[in-house]
């Protein structure tokens, strides 16, 4: 008898406890489920006139936009391309990428610059500055300062330095107070497209830099942007307040803007649900994006797709120095299924080249692209006498899921696959060491020549390439050497066709991170889509406002 009683007691205690745990966790799933959201953001026109005032707290992923351990000085910020929110708020930028409220018609517009013009066959770039701009410390925003900035940026040992091919003598000069002339040895068609995510775009006050010194300037830099620094803890929290000397009348709308770094999408989602923050940029965990779309508290905005996944194959090394092995991968890969299964309801487009519907020079079909065909894959693998592949990626939730799905698909074709999610330094090391076989990455950008563009993954000069092919290089060089859009389009189409023909690397879904924003907060890039130049959409922070 006693024995039974004892067992029961144990069961009685264990049961409710497990149930409690289950209930507590299930609460997470509920939240407030109400109105569905189309996920395309709200159009600025429908929400009435913008209102001034208020403060905003924005969360950024500590491992991406929220990580700026090297500081915010444009000349030394190694992660500048990721830290768009902080850099744009403090410095503004010479040029910005803007789009219509539905994300279409994207183009580079001058901001602190007034205009630009190429001459000398694209080898000389003249940038005219907008008159009357002052840095927040009161010093003038003039050509001399811009030249000082650009020379400092281009000569910095930082990985963030622009790779402009400048002339030896007088590379960057000021003409008068408002004109900057850049002399290059080769035309660079993507220079302007690349600016909005390049550190050169952000102009710092020379006076403030000299006064503060390099180390302090990294923490509290001075620019001519919409906000000025109140306090800053690197990679933790940046508190900004309205710049009263801002050159655009009536802007910025917000009085105070705070960026907080947070460790992951799930904590960020919970913080938003708790009302601790008003926005989170760059949510990439797809189940949470779906969850947020169901939540009536939030506006979910997915940027127009620009960068498709690419399975980079190392063609310099076995097994992918053999075109048959590469073709087997093409035939074995079914991104349509991955789109339907992993990204339920998102209806992500699947690309056949290094662009996506939201970017320039996009074409849905690439002639000669090899599509999913399990039988052909099996046949090729058999012909090769088996195929062993190590498939890696940068360890992010979504990328991990995709390589797991790819592994399953490839194994169905008889390919033996080991997966290896890596941290970024390990990925870089794999590339420098050349000891990798297949890597899931993203390729392309709004402009294929900008950001993590096509050359980044395919040109033999890039350290992150799996391909060394003079013919392909030639396409890229030609495309970069012209500023004529029609010509560039033609060249990129040829390059895409060539990549497909050589089976250099299969492309996939173009996944874009989402902005999750509390209702009542609006802003271009935040609640209206703007194509991403690299990974995250660039928000135009001076025009962000909240309903009072």
């Amino acid at each position, binding site marked *: 008898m*006693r*024995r039974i009683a*004892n*067992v029961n007691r*144990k069961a009685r205690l*264990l049961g409710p*406890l*497990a149930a409690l*745990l*289950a209930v507590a*966790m*299930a*609460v*997470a*799933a509920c*939240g407030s489920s109400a109105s569905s959201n189309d996920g395309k953001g709200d159009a600025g026109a429908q929400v009435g006139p913008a209102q001034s005032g208020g403060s905003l707290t924005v969360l950024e992923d500590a491992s991406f936009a929220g990580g700026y351990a090297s500081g915010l000085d444009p000349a030394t910020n190694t992660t500048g391309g990721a830290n768009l929110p902080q850099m744009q708020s403090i410095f503004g930028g010479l040029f910005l990428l803007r789009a219509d409220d539905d994300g279409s018609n994207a183009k580079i517009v001058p901001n602190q610059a007034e205009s630009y013009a190429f001459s000398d066959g694209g080898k000389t770039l003249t940038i005219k500055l907008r008159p009357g701009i002052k840095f927040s410390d009161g010093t003038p925003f003039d050509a001399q300062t811009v030249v000082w900035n650009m020379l400092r940026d281009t000569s910095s040992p930082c990985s963030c330095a622009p790779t402009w091919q400048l002339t030896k003598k007088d590379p960057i000069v000021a003409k008068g107070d408002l004109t900057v002339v850049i002399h290059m040895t080769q035309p660079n068609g993507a220079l302007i497209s690349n600016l909005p995510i390049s550190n050169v775009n952000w102009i710092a006050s020379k006076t403030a830099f000299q006064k503060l010194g390099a180390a302090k300037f990294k923490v509290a830099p001075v620019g001519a942007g919409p906000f000025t620094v109140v306090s800053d803890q690197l990679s933790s929290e940046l508190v900004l307040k309205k710049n009263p000397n801002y050159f655009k009348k009536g802007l910025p709308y917000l009085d105070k803007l705070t960026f907080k770094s947070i460790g*992951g*999408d*799930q904590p960020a*989602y*919970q913080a938003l*649900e708790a009302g601790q923050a008003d926005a989170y940029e760059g949510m990439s*965990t*797809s*189940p*949470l994006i*779906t*969850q947020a779309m169901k939540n009536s508290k939030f506006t979910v905005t997915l940027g127009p797709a620009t960068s498709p996944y690419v399975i980079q194959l190392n063609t310099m090394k076995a097994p992918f120095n053999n075109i048959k092995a590469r073709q087997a991968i093409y035939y074995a890969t079914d991104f349509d*299924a*991955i789109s*339907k*299964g*992993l990204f*339920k309801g998102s209806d992500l487009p699947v690309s056949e080249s290094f662009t996506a519907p939201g970017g320039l020079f996009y074409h849905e079909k690439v002639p000669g692209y090899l599509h999913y065909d399990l039988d052909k894959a099996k046949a090729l693998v058999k012909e090769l006498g088996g195929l062993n592949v190590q498939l890696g990626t940068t*360890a992010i*939730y979504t990328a*991990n*899921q995709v390589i*797991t*799905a790819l*592994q*399953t*698909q490839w*194994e*169905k074709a008889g390919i033996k696959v080991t*997966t*290896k*999610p*890596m*941290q970024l*330094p*390990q990925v870089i090391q794999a590339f420098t060491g050349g000891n990798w076989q297949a890597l899931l990455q993203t390729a392309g950008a709004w402009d294929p020549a900008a950001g993590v563009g096509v050359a980044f993954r395919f040109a033999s000069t890039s350290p992150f390439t799996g391909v060394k092919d003079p013919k392909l290089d030639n396409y890229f060089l030609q495309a970069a050497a012209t500023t004529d859009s029609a010509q560039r389009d033609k060249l990129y189409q040829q390059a895409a066709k060539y990549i497909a023909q050589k089976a250099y690397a299969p492309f996939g879904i173009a996944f874009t991170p989402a902005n999750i924003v509390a209702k009542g907060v609006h802003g271009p890039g935040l609640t209206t889509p703007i194509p991403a130049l690299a990974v995250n959409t660039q928000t135009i922070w001076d025009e962000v406002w909240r309903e009072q």
Partner: protein
Amino acid sequence: MAVIDASSAQLETALAATTRPRGRWRVWVRTWVPAGMVVFILAICFLGPVVLPIAKPTGGDVLESGLSPFSSGHLLGTDSNGNDILSRLLYGGRASLEVGITVNLIGLVIGGGIGAISAYVGGIVDTLIMRGLDVLIAFPSLVLTLAVAQSLGPSKRNTIFALAFFSIPAVARIARSSTLRLREMPFMQAAQLCGSPWWRILLRHITPNIGPQLISFAALGMGIVIVTEGALSFLGLGIPPPAPSWGNMIFDGQQSMSATPMEVVWPSVALLITVLSFNQLGESLRARWSGR
């Protein structure tokens, strides 16, 4: 830092201390019910997938992702990659138990050996070993884990290595303090006087006496090891995906916990039941042995 050694003994007795059960039945129940549970858990994880008609833990069809429980062929549904959750739970349990048991065994053998020898030999050897352990205890495990992850890469073997490394010092301390107490016992002194070689004393007299305490300590450590294995994914170590372990299932699941809570709940519940069973078994075993 003799004080610490003194209280390690205290720690070990206290962690395993239980009310001395009165009556044969109670003793029987307290030992055999958790023992039965442990056997059941081991059986279902190691034999279950072989005997039962269960899908593979990996390689599921991505188009069948996110199925709810009681879907046809998937009792607990599928995860976001279309893998059967029940199957992952069983195979994951296999991996977790393997790691948990191996790490504890290594800790017991090496840590126990170091502690016992250190105490038995005494003198300068003892001092040196103990100071070395102090260094290891103060050394943050994070850094070693990171070094292992980045230089050797994630694998089950490297995970076990890293985890075992940090279970050794604690076990060694407990073994040492238990042995020190034993040394003063009359039977030990008798054995020494008889001229038994040191290794014989170690094996015949010390091991059987400090064993029970160490084993009950290890039973509690099981849960901690299994949970920590999952947290290692945070730093790029741990059982490499897509192979499941309870730890990496919990870690993966929590990354989207608001959307997919059950992916955390199932492995957590499995882990909890296992830890409770091992713990209860450890307590009872110790109570039985010490009661003798």
